[in-house]
Structures are given as C-alpha cells and as structure tokens.
C-alpha cells in the first residue's frame, strides 16, 4: 500500500492503495466512479477509456502509480452538465443500444476531436478501431463524431 495523490475530474485527493492497482479499479471500487467500464482487462476493447493529461488511455492496465499528479478525466467529469459536444451528438444520433461500451467510445471520440477537430472518415476509423461495440453501433458512432465536430 502507498499514499497516491490523485486528481480525478478536478478533485484532488490522496488514496492509500496498492500502487499496482489499475486505475480502472481505483475509479470503480475506491472512488465510486463506475461510468468507466470493465470489458477485457487487457486493453483490447476500449470500454475503460479515460483521459490522462488530455490523452485517451486504457485504464484497465494502467497502474495507479502512473497517474500520480496527472489530470485524470472520466466520463463523469467530461462535462459539468452532460453537454460536451460528443455527448450531445451521441444523444442526437441516439447511438446507444445496450450502452455499456459507450462511455469508452465517447472518451476516445472526445480525445480525437481535441487533437483533430475535423477528422475525416479514415481518421475516425483509425481512432475508434480499438473500441469494440458488441451491439455494433459503429455507424452511428462515426456519424455522431462528425456531428460533434460541427458544434
């Protein structure tokens, strides 16, 4: 166990936890931020995607020691009122079916748009290919990203 300084969704706190614990489980079990999802535990599906210093990363294989003093943003902190352009576009396109993977999809999409405000089809497909949607809402995800880019 070790005291780790965290900055999650703008909230600074110290947590006494095994430094090897993946950020995913720190979020879900210790901080009660369950919007970030467990899908595979080996960075293959993207359900656990969060932002660390603005970059989309897979929290399921990232030890909590690696985020000490870094800015972490989860789906719960993406916007104050659930009105980030990507969230709005997701609602406009009514993307979700089961909804389980969508937090990860949204976090990946938000990071893409930050780096590339007007991505083309190829850029969207490259950025989103790591996020599995078992319900296969991929077409709507792509369309929503294009809409979000226009807001």
């Amino acid at each position: 166990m070790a005291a780790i300084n965290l900055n999650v969704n703008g909230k600074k706190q110290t947590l006494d936890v095994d430094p090897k614990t993946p950020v995913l489980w720190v979020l879900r079990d210790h901080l009660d931020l369950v919007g970030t999802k467990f899908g595979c535990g080996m960075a293959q599906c993207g359900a656990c995607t969060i932002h660390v210093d603005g970059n989309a990363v897979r929290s399921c294989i990232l030890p909590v020691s690696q985020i000490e003093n870094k800015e972490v943003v989860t789906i719960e902190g993406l916007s104050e009122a659930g009105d980030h352009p990507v969230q709005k576009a997701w609602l406009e396109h009514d993307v979700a079916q089961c909804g389980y993977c969508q937090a990860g999809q949204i976090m990946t999409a938000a990071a893409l748009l930050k780096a590339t405000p007007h991505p083309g089809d190829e850029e969207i497909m490259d950025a989103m290919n790591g996020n599995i949607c078992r319900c296969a809402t991929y077409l709507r995800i792509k369309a929503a990203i294009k809409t979000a880019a226009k807001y």
Partner: protein
Amino acid sequence: MTQSKTTINRRSFLKVSALAGGGMMLSFSWLAGCKQIPGEEILEVPGEWFELNNYIKIGNNGVVNLMSPNPEFGSNVKTSMPMILAEELDVDWKNVIVEQADFYPERFDRQFTGGSQGIRQAWKPLRTAGATARQMLINAAARQWNVPAGEITTTAGMLQHELSNKKAGYGEMASAAAGLPVPEVVTPKNVGDFTIIGKSQKNVDGKNIVTGKPLFGIDYKTDGMLIAMIVHPPFGMKIKSVDDSAARSMPGIKDIFTIVPLADDYERNGFDTTSFLELIVVVGNTTWEVMNAKKAIKAEWELMPEYTMVMQTFQGKRTVITPKGLESTDGHKERMIEMSGGKADVLRKDGNPASAFKTASKVLERTYTAPYLAHNTMEPVNCFAHVTSDKAEIYGPIQAPDFIRNTLSARLALPKEKVHIRLARMGGGFGVRAYGHHLVEAAVISQKVNAPVKLVYTREDDMTYGIYRPTYTATYKAGLDANNNLVAFQVRGGGIPEHAVHANRFPAGTVDNYLAEGWALASNITIGAFRAPRSNFIAGAEQSFLDELAELAGKDPIDFRIELLERAKNSPVGKDNDYDPDRYIGVLKLVREKSNWDQSPSNAKRGVAAYFCHNTYVAEVVDLRMDGNKPIVEKVYAAVDCGIVINPDAAINMGEGGIVDGIGNALFGELTFKNGVPDKNNFHQYRMIRQKETPKEIEVHFVKNDQDPTGLGEPLFPPVFASIANALYKATGKRYYDQPFAKHLELSPAKM
C-alpha cells in the same frame, strides 16, 4: 380497433395495496438529483401519485410515470414499450417518466426479453393497460362534470367535454380515476390515430448512458459488499483438489471455498444450464485484490464422469446425459463428417425425393458448416446478491428472471415470494443472459459468507464459461428438371448438441419432393440461445445454397426465390408451411427496388438473401469489394416486414446492429477447443467486428402495413451471413461454405 376485454391482463390491474411483500418502494429522488441541461425542460416532481394500474401512475400535476416491464438489454424496450402505453393513455411523451419495473410476476406479464417477442407479445396487453387508464380518467371526468363519458375526448393528457366547454388535465382527474372500478371492456385507438407510435423517440436512458451513470449490475455497490470471483475447470473436468494457501493470505481476501451451484438431483428447466458441477470461489474486499488471489490458486482437475440430469423442457420432462471426455474441435469435425453420412431423424417428407433426384436433369449438393460462437457481451457476467435468513435480494443482468426464480428459491430454501429480483440494464444479452447461473452463484456465495456480494467474472471467465452458440453443419441437395424447375430438395442438418433444421420453413412448400432430416451429437460443452438461435446458421446455409442453385438454373436470385414463393402461394405443397409467401415476396421486391438491384454498382459486387424468423420477414443486399484479401462492405440494404414499427429510428438502429453483428460473425466469429479448453479467452484472440470493418452505409426500409408488430432484435441477423457469402462469390469467383469466411479469404491466392 375492436373493443378489448381487460381481463386478458387482469392481474396487471390489481392495486398495489392488495399485495404483500416483494414490492419495492418507488424512489423519485433521482429526478431531483438530475442536473439540468440548458434549454431542457425538467419535469416537476408531483406532490402525489395516483396509480391507475400496475403500469401507469399519474401525478397530481399531470406528470406520468410508466413502468417498463421487460428487462432492457439494448433492444430499447424501455422506450418502445412505454410508448405503447403512452399512445393509448393519450399523453404527451414529454410528460412521461419511464421506470424499469422489478421482476414482479404478480403484477406484470411475461417479463422476458428474448426471441424478439417483447413488443409482439406485449402489444395487446400494453394497449389495453393504456386504454383502460384513459377510460378511467374519462369516467372520472364524466362523473364530476355530470356528462356522458362517450362525449368526452382526450388529447395529450387533457380531457375535454366540448358541449359544456369543460377541460381538465389528467392530473386533476387522477385521484378520482384511481378510485373507480376498472372498466370491463375498453376501445384502443385506431392505428391511423397514433401520435406517438411510429414517431421516433430517443432512448429514455440516453442521458444516463452518455454521462456514465450507474445503470448496470456491475456498477452496483452497497455498504459492506464483498467481491466474489470464480475459478472453473475445463469442459469435461471437475475439481480434484484446491491449493489456496498462497491466495488465502493475500491482501483483502476474506474466504476461498467451493460451491455446487445446483444439486445433482435438481430437476432443471432449460435455462438452468450450469457448465461445471462445482466452482472455486474467492471472496474479498476489492475486485483487484480478488483478481490477484484468483491467479494464485492452484487447482488440480480430474475427468468428470458421464452424468445424468432430469430437465423440464418446452417439450416436457426428459433425461439429459452429459458425456464424459475432453473434447476438441478436430474431433468434433471428424464426428460431424461421420454423422453426416449416417442415420438421421426424418423431420418432414413430401413426395418421393429419392426417385425425383434420379430423374432430375441437374443435381447440386453442397455442405455448409459453422463453428461455436461466444456471445461476448461487453459487460462480463456479474450479479449482486444479498441473502439473509428470510429473503434474497438479487440485482443483475438477466433476460429471463422468471426462468430462474424457482431455481433460486429451491437452492436457497426460501419461498419464491422472498426471492426478489431487480432488473439491471444489461450490457448486452444476445441470448446468453437468459441463463441465470450467475444469479444462483451470487446468491449461494452471499448465503455462504453471510454478506452482500457482487460476483464478477473476468473476460476470460466469461468467454470460457460455455453456453455458446452450437457448432452446426447442413448438407443441401436440389434437383432441377430440364426446364430448370426445382423438382427435388433435401436438407440434412446436424450439430453439437442440436441441429438447426426448421423443416417447415421455406423452401418447404415450394417443391413436390422434399426431405428434411436432422441429427445431433451430445457434448459436455454447454450451449445456449444466441441471437436468432438455429436461424443464425441455417439461414446462411440455405440462402447461400439457393444462390448457387439459382445460378445453376440460370435465373436471377431474386426472381428465382419469388418464383418459388409464387408456387407456395398458388399451389403449396403440404399444410404446415411456416411462412406467408406474400410477405416474403414483399421484402424481396422492396429490397430489389431500394437497392436498384437490376443495376449493379460500379464499385462493388452484390449478394442477396432473405429469411423469415421470429415472426419478421427480412431481405438483405450486400455490396462489397475486395481490397486484396480484405472484403470491404460498401453498403447494405435491408427490407423488413415487422408490421407496425413502434419507434422507427430505434428500429433502424437495431437493424443496423443485427446486420453488422452478422457480418462480423460471418467473417470472423469462431471458438475452437482443445481437450476441453477454449482456444480463445479474450479479445486479443477472439476477433470481433470493429469500426474499420463496418459497412460504410446501411439502409433499413420497412414495409408499410397495419399488421400487429413483431420483433427486430434477431431477424436482421441471420440472412446477412448469406448476403455476404453470395457477394463474396461475385467478388472472388469462389463460393464460401465454411464460416468464418475471413480465414479462407486470407489463405486465398488472390493475396496482393
């Protein structure tokens, strides 16, 4: 619309107060907790709610609370079912709050999500429930205004008596209405008067999903809750010994033990499937700690002997023998080839196929195969349970709570009224969540450790637990006469542990000499329903075969099918043909029109297929091209006849999902085994379709009619396997008989 007797769903109209135990207090605190999105109207919480029946409560301010009875796994029933209630109640959809009902069979009918039956089977009960509540509001107003009920009209939550110029909101009459007797008969709306049904409404959980609210079983947490995980043997093996000495002393670990989920002599129903007789369980404080301890367990396995179970199936009670042995895909393939040439059950026979084949001018015979598939819902198996001496609280992903409640009751030795199942939103279902083994496991663990417990499977546990789509094969044989008319048709299907032949489906009824046969091999690898069970293989096989047969006959594949269907319509063979030729022809004609079939696109080759299953007719055209060895799907056109479409945009979403899922499984889906162990246990090995392989465009078109609605979760999935195979043939010049197709493409000499 004719009058509807409310007795069809009488129990839905019982008053809550008459029910003892099991009921959950409704909580609307979340409404107050929602942050306001600028520009969005927030409904005021009413001071008082009045319950008109089990589905409908109306607040004194006119806000309407509708219960969504069925579990939600992504097919959007939580929006579409309340839409039906709201339509008949005649309220403004903006004033509706939808709430997920608990499993509560004393109050709700058929709380089962699966088989594409949700909307179809709830159509009449929900319309009746809505119309009944509306009539009670009218009756209340009639009394208060002292006018005939028949003169009162409703519009969007308002009651009006035009002659006396009286008006009132539903909220004002709700209290009086709730005290009135339930009318014996009510008159639902005419289809032409619908204002909510047929207009796209957004997913009622959309905002909660995009903001990461806890909606799923795996998100649940309560004070003092422990985490539990399992370790299971390979198929065909059982626990010999467990060395948990290292794991036991690891941080956060509370206990390690084994459980027997169901007693050997328990008479199971068809959804009580347990893949392993006994499981090792690790219980601890946090998920990560338990995951680590799980890895430190050293277990020895030994061969499981053959064992026998008594099962209650839809066909009655039967004895099921689970064979012993360590099974491998290679062995399966050998035995399936052997069986294909051996004995089979005759499922249907018309005319004299044997002699018709002898005199046929041309005969075509082809064999198709498909592997086991894992469901791979994105949310791994999980369940919360808190079992105390007098009751069990269960919260988790379950499509079929009714199939597991008696089992829980028997296993926990609690009366079934004391087993309370709440329905979590499911992170996917696809059939596998109809099997409630995880509810039993969580409950047994909670009972054992005497604490609230959340059971969580790792992805590896989820993918290797079983309940897979079976592996199948089918051999088709057809005979054409000198004029290229179909004169003989034969299908012989088999699989482990079931075949996929539907003997009375198309093309039965279209040909004088017809034979359908089936065989099956037992296995200790468990299987279960997977999106469009059996159809998900046999549609692809049959519709690929018909494509090749049409080519042999020198006919356009759509014309060829329509010609056969005309025969089934005008002079059908046999009596039990399980389809309506007109509706089949309807979707074929619609897809021909919408895809502009007669003019192939310049950039792609196309394949067509059509199938009828789960009460819905679908035809699909796939346009694809090859980029080296990689198929690129440019576009898919689907034509669908599911009767009235409740929520059009959500229906299209479901259709797109079924199509892309089908393409993914046709190209990549495969689970193989060696000595009882699945060769794949996570997404680095199990290839799922991803963004880059998704078709660039999908059009879903619905046949417009006033037929009662049928489902959409499954029917768009099966035919696309054949549309893909048939398009691949056009693009590569080769027929593809063995799924998944991508690995054959990758081996093909066309590699660039």
